């Protein structure tokens, strides 16, 4: 065998291997790409099948659309910030524990992660409602006097969403914290940095990649979230996904619903693209080292 035929054989094998991914590629093409492409087409045509931008123009003209987008971004940003504020200390705590304890306490993150989000949304509805446990306990302990409105509004939505999204932030963050060599902290201490200074100047920057990856996942999942805002928002928190279903249920207007979905998709892709340019997140999101 000469070099050429070896090379040809190698190329052939590479293609055969790629072929193994074929069934998955075909399935995703048929079930994701074709339908989404179809909807994209529908968003650009009117009821007579002619090209139009009316579905997109409506988004600019009608105030209700603007409000939906603002609500969506507001909820997504707030949820992400809450997750960072709560998730960072917990991830840090877990990362400094000895492995056995860390594994045990990690179950407190994994248990909700594996539990149906419908179940957790339901639990929050039960906890937060007017005659719910939280109001009952707070009143009997004298924290507040009359029942607070915690569910069926923005507060309830944010609480529920933060709870559901938290594991998505903690897991990558924990991963990046575990990778940090403790020697770096020794070196910082040795060179005279106070623990706080060492944390901010050495430790924190090293956790940024995990934090950005986690925040991105949370933010992007929030953008298209449907169940929790629909149940805990009680019709008061209209996010894009809620509006899409409402348009389909009430008007059966595929063009308008698709246009909203397309805008959501484009927003997601732009955010991912910008973030991947700003930070080297590929390594975390796609697990490439």
């Amino acid at each position, binding site marked *: 065998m000469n070099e050429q035929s070896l090379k040809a054989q190698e190329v052939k*094998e590479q*293609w055969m*291997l*790629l072929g*193994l*991914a074929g*069934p*998955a*590629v075909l*399935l*995703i093409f048929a*079930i*994701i790409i074709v*339908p*989404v492409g*179809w909807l994209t087409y529908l968003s650009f045509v009117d009821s007579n099948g002619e090209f139009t931008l009316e579905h997109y123009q409506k988004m600019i003209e009608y105030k209700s659309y603007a409000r939906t987008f603002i609500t969506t971004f507001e909820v997504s940003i707030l949820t992400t910030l809450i997750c960072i504020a*709560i998730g960072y*200390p*917990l991830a840090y*705590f877990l990362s*400094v524990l000895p492995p056995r304890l860390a*594994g045990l*306490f990690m*179950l*407190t993150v994994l*248990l909700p992660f*594996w*539990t*149906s989000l*419908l*179940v957790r949304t*339901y*639990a*929050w*509805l*039960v906890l937060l*409602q007017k*005659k*719910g*446990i939280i109001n009952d306990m707070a009143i009997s302990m004298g924290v507040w006097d009359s029942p607070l409105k915690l569910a069926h509004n923005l507060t309830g939505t944010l609480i529920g969403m933060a709870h559901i999204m938290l594991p998505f932030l903690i897991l990558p963050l924990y991963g990046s914290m575990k990778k940090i060599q403790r020697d770096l902290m020794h070196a*910082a201490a040795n060179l005279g940095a106070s623990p706080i200074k060492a944390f901010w100047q050495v430790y924190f920057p090293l956790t940024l990649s995990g934090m950005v990856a986690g925040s991105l996942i949370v933010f*992007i999942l929030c953008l*298209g979230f*449907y*169940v929790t805002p629909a149940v805990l928002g009680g019709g008061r928190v209209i996010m894009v*996904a809620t509006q*899409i*279903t409402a348009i*389909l249920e009430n008007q059966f207007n*595929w063009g308008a*619903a698709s246009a909203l*979905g*397309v805008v*959501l*998709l484009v927003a*997601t*892709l732009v955010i991912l693209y910008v973030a991947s340019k700003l930070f080297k997140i590929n390594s975390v999101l*796609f*697990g490439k*080292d």
Partner: protein
Amino acid sequence: MSWLKKSASDTQITHGRRLWLYASAAIIMLLLVIPTLIVIPMSFSDSQYLEFPPSNWSMRWYYEYFESARWMRATATSFQVGFLTMILATPLGTMAAYALFVSGHKLARVVFTFLITPMIVPVILIAIGIFYAYGKAGLNNTIPGLVLAHTVLAIPLVMIVITAALRTYDLNQERVARSLGATRTKAFFVITLPQIKFSVVTSALLSFLTSFDEVIVAIFVSGGSNATLTKHMFAALRDYIDPTIASISTLMILISTTLLLATQIFGSKEK
């Protein structure tokens, strides 16, 4: 209280100065777990209303669930779809992950990114897209339709789990087997697969759960006598709070906890 003064790490921090961290971590962990588990005691309540702690205990809501033909039908559908999704997504995802990992082809990265698009495209868009396309293809409210949709959602998860496992595995072992005359297929099944089998099991359990817990696609694509448990639950949640949901939730927590513990046990074996 000498423990407080002991250093917590080999830098200068003492446990005493870290108390705030321990306290806040404890509170956060409680906040994560309690709302997940609170439905369990409530499901044993006797009352129409959800009260905590329940004034009278009973199995009433479990009877309500098990004696309802509608809930039973939906549960059977969910199990069926979950199982079929699992046996489809696991081999497809594993094959793709393995192929892309070992092939040095420059397209491999592109294909990998393509295969995880179901995680990037907002689920609501996927859901209405499939609903529309299935409308044309006559696949709405059918089991095969729902299984295919859930398989697509599960494949990226399988690929991520398997790729992670392959990364910690030394592929040279396969090369040795092949240099000794094994075909690539044989080398994979005899040498590689046994060493990543726990990750394969984990990804299978994840695929099942992805389908079993999936709500949005199911709301649109499943219906009639093939509606899933989650579709019925969502409808019940949006309209009124039916305590039967508490008993169903408890059973769902039981399932996910069992699967989670299974993966933990498998995971620790592989290391």
